[in-house]
């Protein structure tokens, strides 16, 4: 499903931030990505959600070689990927429900059903009373839950989350992890970048560790 072969990445003419990355993520697998700050986790995730291109090596996403896939085909691939950004990337001028509805709306789904579905998801993450709230009025944890709801609303084949439980209390954290596990059971491949070691203990998943741009597997499942 997702294959990285000898992937390296650098920004501009700078040093390589990722070196010789090799892994294969099977459909429906669950993975954690750990490592200290600056190890290259965000860069690796950017390659996974097609925000950046590698400087070298081969990336295969959903059977497509990224080096030869034309740019016009990338939006369709991006729609198969749900992303929870560390800084949420919510649109400040839209309400919580409009932010969550966005991925389905741009694909042309029936708007009434989209709004209904977005509302249900927000209720599920505990934001039933905050559907019309603008991100500026939400707490960090609430923003994170809106970002998660937006990432999962399109039932993505791959869910990439950067520190998704970083701003929520432990109870909500475990509720969100339960959501990721449920999605994983439905076939979504999940990759979560985290510093939270308790998550690694609670969930059965492969653990990948990045250090100085190099990837190693702490455990494989």
């Amino acid at each position, binding site marked *: 499903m997702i294959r990285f072969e000898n992937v390296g990445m650098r920004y501009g003419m700078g040093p390589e931030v990722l070196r010789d990355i090799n892994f294969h993520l099977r459909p429906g697998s669950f993975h954690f990505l750990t490592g200290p700050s600056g190890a290259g986790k965000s860069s690796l995730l950017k390659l996974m*959600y*097609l*925000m*950046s*291109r590698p400087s070298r090596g081969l990336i295969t996403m959903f059977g497509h070689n990224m080096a030869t896939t034309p*740019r016009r085909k*990338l*939006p*369709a*691939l*991006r*729609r198969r990927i749900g*992303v929870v950004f560390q800084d949420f*990337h919510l*649109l*400040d*001028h*839209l309400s919580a429900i*409009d932010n969550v*509805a*966005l*991925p389905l*709306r*741009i*694909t042309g789904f029936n*708007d009434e059903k989209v709004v209904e579905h977005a509302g249900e998801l927000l209720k599920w993450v505990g934001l039933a009373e905050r559907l019309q709230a603008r991100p500026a009025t939400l707490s960090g944890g609430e923003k994170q839950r809106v970002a998660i709801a*937006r990432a999962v609303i399109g039932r993505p084949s791959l869910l990439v989350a950067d520190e998704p439980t970083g701003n929520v209390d432990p109870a909500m954290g475990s509720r969100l992890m339960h959501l990721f596990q449920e999605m994983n059971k439905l076939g979504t491949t999940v990759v979560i970048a985290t510093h939270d070691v308790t998550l690694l203990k609670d969930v059965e998943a492969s653990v990948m560790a990045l250090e100085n741009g190099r990837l190693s597997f702490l455990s494989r499942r």
Partner: protein
Amino acid sequence: MDWRKNLLPDHRASGQYLPWVIAVMVYLATLAASAGLTVNKSLGQWRDDLTRNATVQIASARPDSVAQQVEAALKVLRAAPGVEKAEALSRGDLVALLEPWLGSGNVSNDLPMPSLIEVTLAPEPAVDFKALVSKLAKVAPDARMDTHESWIDRLITLARTVQAIAIGIVVLIALATVAIVVFATRAGLAADQQVVEVLHLIGGQDTFIAGRFQSHFLRLALRGGIVGLAAAATTIVMLARFTSELGGSFVPKVHISPFEILILLAVPLAAALTTMITARITVMRSLARIT
């Protein structure tokens, strides 16, 4: 309400002044276009007036022979094919022609003046001026015929120059509009970078993202275009009243026909379309640089 309309934030620096800029551009372009149309119409009128008139002037060192030559010339002119009317101007008519320059009552009775014959030509058949001048020379050797040809040529040159300037102004305004919209769109893209990035990352096609910007800029341009057109219409109405009060056959009359109104209405629409297409191309080019 359509969710697409809210996708870009409302109050953006890029769009704040654009309607006013477009309003000024549309105002100037409409006035330039209207000037071009008015001159074109006046040119036709002037040409008709001048090509249907000629003047025969008889001035002689022997004043006693002038009356005789005028009579003979009138006979030749009235008999010539293509001449509708030939009338000798009275001394009173000549004095009236001089009064604008010399002042009323300042033309003394002993001021020597040539005799003038005003000739009105029929649309068909065309007058053979060469033959007519030759015949006139035989019966009135001091007669000189003026067909206003050099006047017409100079007038046409002037009118064509004014039209070329009007077209040049419209083209310059269009180019300036394109440049302003490119800057405004780029500023809009920079201001809405987060929106563009999010739409891009959740799988929005470039055409979809560009579509939001082009609709936004189309709305701004239409708003500005309507204001500019209204201001231009007010100016044109004022000029029309002013020129009709002035009178005189050589002052161009500002009168807009229904067809010309359609042309002028097309100015804000063309500005809006130019703005929309420019915004789309600018956004598409910018997006093409993103992975």
